[in-house]
């Protein structure tokens, strides 16, 4: 395709930066209180006072989209940290020790992968109960096998490299080899995986909260806003637009960013 600038990285980075800033600054940018109910101004169409209109309880939609972003991003970040925090060590240990440790850990990972991702998240929420804290755990569980596989693959690849063999010959313990040699060489891959996993986490969070299993009202979340919009769809169709735009933009941004980083690290593609 010839030399060209890394467009996905630039566009993805810009979207990600914009959404993160809007979410972080929500309390200062949002014109209203996200949970302030206003019975007099229910289901108002977009106007100067409420640029995206108001919902069935008279709450300002623009305010709730901004604050919903905060909830979605925090759930996504914590879920990725849980998934990577459990999955990566599992994978590294499985790859390093091999044998029955590997077999046992990978059986568990395969078991988790035998569930469709959203079903596994729903099952976990059914066990833990609904809520955005529980959703973090549920999405984290879904991500465990993803990170475990990446880490295990890399540990297996590095196990027979000269520097690992040299370290072992010098008497380094398994823990030292893992921590000082294999982990640093796995971090790059884990970062790429984390970027892609994050967009999936945002989408799963939105799905869970759409089903009423994620953030509980009155906490604003993009998924639940769409559920509320669906109930009044033919009275106030504008409610069904912006939370969806926000989800799609966030997922698109992180996907592009992940693609861009991968292209940059692997110039052959």
């Amino acid at each position, binding site marked *: 395709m010839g030399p060209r600038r890394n467009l996905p990285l630039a566009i993805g980075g810009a979207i990600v930066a914009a959404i993160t800033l809007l979410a972080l600054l929500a309390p200062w940018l949002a014109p209203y209180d996200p949970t302030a109910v206003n019975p007099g101004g229910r289901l108002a169409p977009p106007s100067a006072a409420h640029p995206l209109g108001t919902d069935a309880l008279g709450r300002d939609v623009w305010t709730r989209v901004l604050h919903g972003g905060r909830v979605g991003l925090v759930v996504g970040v914590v879920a990725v940290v849980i998934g990577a925090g459990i999955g990566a060590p599992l994978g590294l240990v499985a790859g390093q020790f091999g044998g029955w440790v590997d077999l046992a850990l990978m059986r568990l990972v395969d078991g988790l992968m035998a569930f469709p991702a959203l079903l596994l998240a729903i099952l976990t929420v059914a066990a833990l109960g609904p809520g955005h804290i529980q959703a973090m755990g549920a999405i984290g569980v879904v991500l465990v096998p993803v990170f475990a596989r990446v880490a295990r693959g890399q540990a297996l690849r590095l196990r027979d490299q000269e520097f690992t063999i040299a370290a072992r010959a010098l008497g380094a313990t398994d823990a030292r080899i893992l921590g000082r040699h294999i982990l640093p060489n796995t971090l790059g891959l884990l970062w790429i995986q984390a970027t892609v996993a994050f967009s999936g986490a945002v989408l799963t969070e939105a799905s869970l909260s759409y089903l009423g299993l994620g953030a509980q009202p009155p906490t604003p979340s993009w998924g639940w806003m769409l559920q509320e919009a669906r109930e009044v769809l033919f009275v106030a169709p504008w409610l069904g637009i912006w939370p969806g735009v926000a*989800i799609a933009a966030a*997922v698109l941004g992180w996907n592009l960013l992940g693609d861009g980083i991968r292209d940059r690290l692997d110039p052959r593609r």
Partner: protein
Amino acid sequence: MAPTILVVATLTFVALNVVPGDLAVMLAGVDARAEDVARLRALYGLDRPIVVRYLDWLAALGRGDLGISSSLRAPVAELVAARLPATLSLAFASMAVATAMGIALGSWSARRAGSIVDASVLVASQVGLAVPNFWLGILLLIGFAATLPIFPLQGYAALVRDPWAWARHLALPTLVIGVERGAVLTRLVRASLLEEMGRDYVRTARGKGVGDRAILRRHVLRNAAIPVLTVGGLQLGYLLGGAIIVEQVFGIPGLGRLLLQGIYARDLALVQGAVVVIALLFAGVNVLVDVLYTRLDPRIQYAA
């Protein structure tokens, strides 16, 4: 297959029975009287040790007995069987749409790699990946309700009773899941076609004077099908997951809605049964994909 069934069943049981604490208290409510809790515990056999309950449940599962739903007061196996046709219809129809879309768009853009067509297909598929299926469903509801009221917006009709109504009910939900999964397959078909078209055998065939069309059909598509099938099999997991949520948007009485009904009603047997059946469907499809491989590539052996 057999180990997968066991692992899926075990994980489901552990998640729902070990994690949440006292189920009887949950069913009765926190402020229930002690004798009510005890009555419930005996009624659902919760007073027995967990290992016994697990083995009992597994044995029953083996007989196709999924227990009795406490909220709908009917055998779970019957409820699941009644909901299965809707979910399977949706899954197969969307898979067909996704595959057709993936092969058509993917090979169209691969043959014109680097052109404006290729770039537009890539951008469109990136957007298709990012749009949540339930939101696309909502947008279609808004659009069709206002402009073209030819599709029923909610519900389902059985295929055997009224094929025309069946198709009309499924059109929009199928489009939603089909487009979502089709976006993934488009990118994949494009990438693996491009990779195969750069191989030596293609150059050889070209050197022999074989036409582009014949090369694509006779050689490239066959080789490119293997990675597509791998990811396609995994896609079915997302597709079933997508069906859970899209059924909710369009009010289709399928397995996904049954599962959510069970969760909202804290109906343990119903949740357990629905989860296991959906997971087993997924596992079954993956075995089918493995078998298909051996058909496409005789070098691959399927170890049962």
